[in-house]
């Protein structure tokens, strides 16, 4: 059997993995250096562009996900309804965490102008945001960040994929 290159072997490992894998785990599995692994992952991303899969990445962890363009097909296959179940306040909060995170509850509330405990608890329980650590501010409040689930919910492969914030014309 011909030897497979690193890119192909990484793809194989990512295929069987049931959770996002760090570069270290991938390097360990393939026996390659971290540097080579990263280069091969970049190559894999390019190769996948013409397939129904994408390389999802968050926080240096990778997982194979389906192409967002295949969403309708997969919904039909899974007999799922389109997800329009997020309320406007939920979307607003998610946008703040996605574009300004990681940030604390009080920072989120400062932008929204309303108390956001319930909203945050709701988004946490749906796995759309996660606690990523503690702020160094007094009281060490929890820092929130968006999750892999968030990215997949909106068909994004990584944070780089977030659409740029539309510029607002108003001048102070």
């Amino acid at each position, binding site marked *: 059997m011909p030897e497979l290159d690193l890119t192909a072997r990484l793809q194989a490992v990512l295929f069987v993995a049931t959770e996002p894998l760090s570069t270290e785990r991938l390097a360990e599995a393939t026996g390659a250096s971290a540097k080579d692994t990263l280069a091969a992952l970049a190559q894999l991303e390019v190769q996948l562009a013409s397939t129904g899969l994408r390389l999802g990445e968050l926080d240096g962890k990778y997982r194979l996900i389906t192409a967002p363009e295949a969403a309708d097909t997969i919904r039909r296959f899974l007999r799922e309804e389109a997800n329009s179940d997020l309320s406007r306040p939920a979307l607003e909060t998610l946008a703040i965490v996605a574009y300004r995170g990681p940030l604390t509850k009080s920072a989120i509330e400062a932008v929204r102008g309303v108390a956001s405990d319930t909203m945050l608890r709701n988004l946490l329980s749906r796995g759309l945001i996660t606690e990523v650590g503690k702020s160094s501010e007094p009281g060490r409040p929890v820092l929130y960040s968006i999750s892999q689930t968030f990215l997949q919910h909106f068909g994004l492969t990584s944070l780089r994929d977030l659409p740029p914030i*539309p510029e607002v014309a108003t001048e102070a």
Partner: protein
Amino acid sequence: MTHTVAVGEFEGPLGILLDLVERGRLEVTAISVAEITENYLGRIKQLGPSSPEALSEFLQLGARLLYIKSLALLPQPASEEQTEELRQLNLELEEYSRLQAAARELARRGSLRSWHRTATDTLPPQELPLPKIELSQLAEAFTRALKRLEPERSVGVIQHHVSLETVSHRIREHLGRGSFDLQSLLDNCHDRLEAIVTFLALLELIREGAAQVTQANQFAPINVEPAGA
């Protein structure tokens, strides 16, 4: 609940303010602050009766607008403060408006989605080899289990107490005479509590290194013996 509907329409106080500003195609400036404040307070009144908590969120911004408006009535030095307050409010409003646009952008992506593989186990579950058991053994085990279910022998008002020390001492005595079957030890217990205490005492003895347990194979009798035997 008319209130929740109204709040749903505007995510919060800034939502109302933004709407007012966009509708009037004006900015929150010293000239327009009076008009905006009035409109804002008008909108809050429309929200109608609601919980104090919900209303307080809207009142805070109302108070802030009134404060900025009031600064205009004061002599000169206050105008600088008003400029600063207005600048700050505009900055917040801009940030809010920008993230609102981002939220709408996200909503537009609502139909897109990516899935990941959800298979939880790619390896076939390991099968436990079934021990060779005769039907008669099964029947015997069932009888033993039934026996344990029999009503308690002693029905009395005096509760039977066993201390860990007593039981521990009893097990040590047993051990002094050599190894024995765990089942025989448990069979001698008068009730469930004593069985539990016995079990705990045995675990303690194992931890101390005074006893050890062995089992020849799966489902075989568990043998208790002095440590090092």
